[in-house]
């Protein structure tokens, strides 16, 4: 499947992956992360239950303290 991940086109061989699987594949290993799928905020406990499919828009951002 082809999706948009952080404004870039990404192609995965599988046509259905959870957010947790994508994080694993793309090495998003930080502890503090925020996720939006098609502009909807996704809770941490739903990362392994929420499926990403063809042409979805996924945003995975590392949060850093400071301000």
């Amino acid at each position, binding site marked *: 499947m082809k999706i948009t991940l952080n404004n870039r086109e990404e192609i995965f061989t599988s046509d259905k992956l959870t957010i947790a699987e994508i994080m694993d594949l793309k090495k998003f290993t930080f502890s503090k992360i925020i996720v939006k799928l098609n502009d909807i905020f996704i809770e941490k406990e739903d990362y392994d239950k929420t499926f990403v499919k063809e042409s979805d828009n996924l945003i995975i951002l590392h949060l*850093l303290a400071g301000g």
Partner: protein
Amino acid sequence: MNFEDIKKILKTKTVGIAGCGGLGSNCAVALARTGIGKLIIADFDKIEESNLNRQYYFYDQIGQAKASALKTIIQRINPETIVESHTILLEPANIPSIFKDCDVIVEAFDRTEMKEMIMKVISNNFPEKHLIMGIGMAGWGANNLFTDKEFGNLIICGDGVNEIREDNPPLAPRVGIVANMQANVVLEILLGKNMNQIG
């Protein structure tokens, strides 16, 4: 657009600033100087001496509530900017009512839990509003790392890598850069892209 045209547009706009520390105080001052009509600012905290290395406060304001001290500063800079200040801990229950009338909202917290919280609350309650976050500003130097990234209505300013730690503290120049980048993004949203500018 000349400055009078710019001020005429900005005078009708309201910007919310969530947090009045290094990001919030510097961002609010930049927006007041450009002539924003109204600022809604909120922070629960009081000014400490350790804040003065980066926050837009004065030695004689130590001990005062940040939100009201910032209002005083803004009124001295531009009395035409209306400032609504809230000395309150921002949380999911009060954020929607405090920021509902804002055209744009600036995230200016230090802790990641708070950054995550406001991003979620704004996304769930006001998906149409722009939220401008500051991520990555600790230390000094490395000007070339700063960028802004647009993800729909979520815009991230900062270097994206430098988290504050004991051995990588936040300092005035880099925190001020990110605060002013956030103010600059606010202007771009409110005024549109600048057609008279190169780049």
